[in-house]
């Protein structure tokens, strides 16, 4: 096979589906979204994650064309779409409320978008059937939305959005109205369907579990600004800010002083634990300042007997167990090390400690992140 063809294909696969170029949204004097830049890769699954009111829905609605950005440009496949009305954008939207048309049958609901496209009647039948099979509800065509369960309505809403083969699929907290078990099933299924179709997807949630499980990339937002963009592994293990560290899972934040920074190692002094070294890859913002904060996930901090031998490379300190939370498969300890209060989540298989007991706490410096002040 001649090389140029392969190159051309790669370029298409890696191209950008959606670009947000300095978009701002103001409601009166209130700024809901501050200048925001983002590139969404073709075919990828991107999640907007953040606490309530941080501007996730506002951002999504601007991409959808349901809200006009106050400033900035939105590009879909390289074309500026700011002035393109929503019905000409070819986007699939799944609403939190599903928004299935109550006066139309399930078939008519799924077929709705095809009416406005150049599709023959036979093709409509066949496309609707395929979409309903994809969401595993092939036999519901004659029913009305009120005759379906919440989970089924959710699937039909998805079928209706994907049957038009949208350039981008937009989902605003689509799983939040489902109960916990169903939500986990739908999470897996939604991800499978997205991968099968290869459709670029923007997903909004404030559930970190959903975000970590489904996304190729996560955008962590706070007060209308992006805190961090990265893979689930990155945002979880290499939080770029204290906010991200606190928002995703349980973290320990410890004050440290930086002793010296080399080409690929940074030496730091951590009270009670002593001196330790981290890789520069563990310092997300590049240069470490004199003072900083060391972020350590609660799962990475371990408790053991004072006499037990430490795993290689670990640093340790002596602590007292202040409180114990039994979580089922794991145990959460609240440990005092000097005046520091630390959290540790250990599996039940390890040695158990009781309230008031002394223990040795230790961790591998490879597992922490250093944030500048």
């Amino acid at each position: 096979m001649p090389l140029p063809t392969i190159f051309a294909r790669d370029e298409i696969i890696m191209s950008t589906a959606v670009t947000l170029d300095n978009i701002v949204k103001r409601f009166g004097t209130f700024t809901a979204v501050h200048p925001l830049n983002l590139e969404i890769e073709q075919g990828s699954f991107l999640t907007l994650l953040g606490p309530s009111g941080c501007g996730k829905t506002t951002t999504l609605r601007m991409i959808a064309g349901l809200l006009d950005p106050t400033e900035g440009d939105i590009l879909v496949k390289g074309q500026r779409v700011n002035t393109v009305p929503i019905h000409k954008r070819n986007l699939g939207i799944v609403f939190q409320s599903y928004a299935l048309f109550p006066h139309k049958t399930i078939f008519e609901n799924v077929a709705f978008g095809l009416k406005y496209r150049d599709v023959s009647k036979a093709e409509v039948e066949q496309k609707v059937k395929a979409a309903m099979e994809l969401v595993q509800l092939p036999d519901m065509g004659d029913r009305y939305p009120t005759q379906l369960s919440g989970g089924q309505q959710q699937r039909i809403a998805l079928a209706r959005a994907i049957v038009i083969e949208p350039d981008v699929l937009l989902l605003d907290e689509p799983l939040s109205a489902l109960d916990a078990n169903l939500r986990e099933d739908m999470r897996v299924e939604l991800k499978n369907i997205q991968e099968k179709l290869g459709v670029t997807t923007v997903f909004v949630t404030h559930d970190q579990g959903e975000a970590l499980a489904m996304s190729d990339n996560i955008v962590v937002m706070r007060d209308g600004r992006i805190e961090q963009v990265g893979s689930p592994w990155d945002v979880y293990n290499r939080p770029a800010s204290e906010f991200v560290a606190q928002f995703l899972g349980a973290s320990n934040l410890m004050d440290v002083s930086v002793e010296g920074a080399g080409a690929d190692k940074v030496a730091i002094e951590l009270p009670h634990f002593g001196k330790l070294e981290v890789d520069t890859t563990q310092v997300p913002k590049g240069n470490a300042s004199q003072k900083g904060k060391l972020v350590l996930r609660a799962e990475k901090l371990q408790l053991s007997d004072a006499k037990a031998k430490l795993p290689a490379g670990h640093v340790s300190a002596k602590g007292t167990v202040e409180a114990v939370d039994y979580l089922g498969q794991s145990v959460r300890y609240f440990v005092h090390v000097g005046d520091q209060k630390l959290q540790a989540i250990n599996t039940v298989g390890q040695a158990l400690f009781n309230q008031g007991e002394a223990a040795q706490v230790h961790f591998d410096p490879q597992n922490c992140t250093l944030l500048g002040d």
Partner: protein
Amino acid sequence: MRGWPLIRAWTILVYTFMFLPVAVVILLAFNANQFGAFPMTGFSLRWFVALWENDAIVRAFQTSLTLGLMTAIISTTLGVLASLALVRYDFPGKNSISTLLIAPILVPEVVLAVALLLFLQMLNIPKSFFLLLMGHVIFTLPFVVLVVQARLVAVKKDYEEAARSLGASPIQAFFQITLPLILPAVMAGGLFAFTISFDDITGTLFWKPGGVETVPTQIFAMLRNSISPEINALGAVMIMLTTGLPLIGIGVARWSASRRNK
């Protein structure tokens, strides 16, 4: 619980007072007696036939029907558009416009009637059927707006947005999604407008051009001369029309709702 028999008796009295005259009118419409009064001397449809043969009454009926239907169509169309604007869009002066639209039912009808009449005289505009129609539109519009607005608030914007995202233009989304969802309220509003216009006498007396009579003004005119039994028959027809239409409307609404949720 001792007060209940009294309250019950009182309630029955009130309703009797309200509905007995109506019942009497209907009953006397079928009276064979030529004085249109008790005692009943036999069952007869002669007064209905007389109605049918009275040109003035037939003409008044046609006028009322035309006026009522046109009022209903114009009021409903304007009312739906106004409700859409008030519920779905934000614009300066929204609250004052909303109040202005509702105002005609807060102002006594006589005041409204005189005001409009004086206004037209000031501008030297002669009375016409068109202006009578506009008058009816003005005071039926609030009912349509109130009913349709209430329904529209309950229909989530999500439906329209979903339709738009799937490729429907704003107008297509309105006719495909919004209108069917608010249709019961639109029909109710239209029926309100029709019956209010059909029944109206105050405004109509002030606004109607010479020579034009609606059923209520015709009855009013007839009463000034004599109390003919035809009036009873005409009253019976009016009652049937103004209560029958809403009942049919409710029936249709129930039927279409049950079809969807079977």
